[in-house]
């Protein structure tokens, strides 16, 4: 019979002082430590790009939240990545206003330009393509979000232009 491998991660050795301080701040404004779980996941993801199993175990240790419960939270949300992602994650809105105004053609253009499908990352590790529920830019549809920037009034051409600029500059600026 195979034994179940368990991993215990001591948060103090795994998380940085900056990460711990940010998470402790979030925990301090809530009534319980577990309530800081989502913020903790976001803090660690901001520093490391995604939530690895080790990161999950460390946060679980820091907040005294069962690993299974934290995993349930981590996998529940669209903006927490439990797999490695590229340097820039493209969240292309596929909700109704964007659908009615031609988001499908934007999607085709992005897929062809990057040669990836939803959920995949380019071979150079620069871009990951994900769909996103309504971004709240319905009057300026179609819309997408890369990093913390929102891009609106997209056409197949302008979407590819934006990606080219980001790839060239190495940074997102609206």
């Amino acid at each position, binding site marked *: 019979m195979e034994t179940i491998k368990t991993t215990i991660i001591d948060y103090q050795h795994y998380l940085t002082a900056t990460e711990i301080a940010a998470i402790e701040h979030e925990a301090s404004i809530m009534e319980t430590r577990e309530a800081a779980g989502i913020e903790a996941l976001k803090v660690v993801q901001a520093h490391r790009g995604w939530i690895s199993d080790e990161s999950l175990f460390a946060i679980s240790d820091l907040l005294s939240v069962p690993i299974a419960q934290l995993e349930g939270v981590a996998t529940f*949300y669209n903006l927490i990545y439990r797999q490695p992602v590229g340097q820039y994650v493209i969240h292309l809105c596929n909700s*109704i206003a964007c659908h*009615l105004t031609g988001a499908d053609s934007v999607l085709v253009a992005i897929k062809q330009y990057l040669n990836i499908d939803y959920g995949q990352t380019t071979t150079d590790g620069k871009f990951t393509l994900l769909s996103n*529920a309504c971004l709240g830019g*319905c009057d300026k549809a179609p819309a997408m979000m890369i990093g*913390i920037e929102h891009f609106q009034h997209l056409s197949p051409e302008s979407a590819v232009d934006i990606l080219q600029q980001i790839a060239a500059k190495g940074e997102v600026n609206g």
Partner: protein
Amino acid sequence: MAEHTSNKPLKPLTQWVNLQQPLSFDDYCQAGGYQGSKIALQYSRNEVLEIVKKSGLKGRGGAGFPTGMKWSFVPMFTDGDEEAPDNKYLVANADEMEPGTFKDRLLLEGVPHQLVEAMIIAAYTIGANKAYIFLRGEYYLAAKRLQDAIDQAYQNNWLGEKIQGSSYSMDLYIHCSAGRYICGEETALINALEGKRAIPRAKPPFPQISGLFGKPTIVNNVETLCNLPHILKNGIAWFQAISPNSDAGSKIYSACGRVKNPGLWELPMGPTLGEVLYDYAGGLQDGLKFRGLLPGGASTDFLVAEHLDTPMDFDSIAKVGSRLGTGGLIVLDDKNCPVAMVLNLMRFFAQESCGWCTPCRDGTPWAVEVLTRIEQGQGKIQDLDTLAKLCDFMWIGKTHCALAPGAVEPLRSALKYFHDDFLQHIEHGCCHYNPSMSAKRTKVSQDQVTNIHKYQSVKPPQPPKVGQ
């Protein structure tokens, strides 16, 4: 009541909106801000509650529940009562994620101090010393601007200990979510704030009695809250006089889809659908004709040309078989396929279903499968019966929250108003809006359609609203 006579705004919510550079604390005060909260702090809690009750303010998040009545369920309200619960919470629901809805974003990014002031009034009234803004994760700009406003409010003693020399203290925090539609449902939102998986809670107990961390909690929509400073400042009579309609106050309406001028407009409650569509949104883009619209976000029933004279208030829209919802029109033109539109909506609901209860977890993907088949020209006439049955399986009373009933609304109304389009897909084995979709001919006749007609004659009651 403070019944000023001059400068009574007709567009209270958006009069100070500046998306480029929102008003700083000083500018906001100079424009007339933090006067409503000042007045509120001079009243007793009961007096403020009475004002809000009498104003007739209804929730703007979709359900349209009277705000004052919601607050009155919080146990308390005898000043100096030692027995009243000590901890209570106010939460602003800024998890705006209803497809086709972008009104709260305008208020959050354009005039963040207004929400802070509004939350002071609301929290004071229900006796909450801690309040949270539950903000959707994608609204990064709103998060930054709100935090700036909160910091300035702390610096000027509008938040923190003993606000403006009163005995009332209050802390206000932002919680940025990580993207999930169900968090807009108030009990799911409370679970999310507690760090739990965001599934709705069974009611009762209602959050007003036992909500966040088991304490009395009020969850209000951003637009609802933003009315408060103006009601306190300008009075009940002013608020009710804004609208000639049965519903008091103003409302932010919007339109999206292929219209000439998509956008947001704050109008007195109750313009007709046609006015918003043609006078404000400019009608359909050149070369397109109007087919139908969803009057208040993705989870409302389709309305068509015959309904365009209907006023956009809660009761009138309900009378013609839909809901005012968030007041955001999603307009369908004649070059977009209604079946594809419903499929897109259903995919959204299937993806965002939290998975807690079976009708929603299984029903929404099932509907997606059937709709995909029809849209791709591989549907059978029996599929229409299946869809009608699914509308029943996912209806109110069979699910824990309003997500699945919300998904049913566009579907059941599309089956009614765009029945010919569904039939055409099935009969011709293709989508005639997008003929490249794979074709498989299955000839059927109209008389084979059975249950679908029976279904249409049944009109279920109006559901409460989920999400933003």
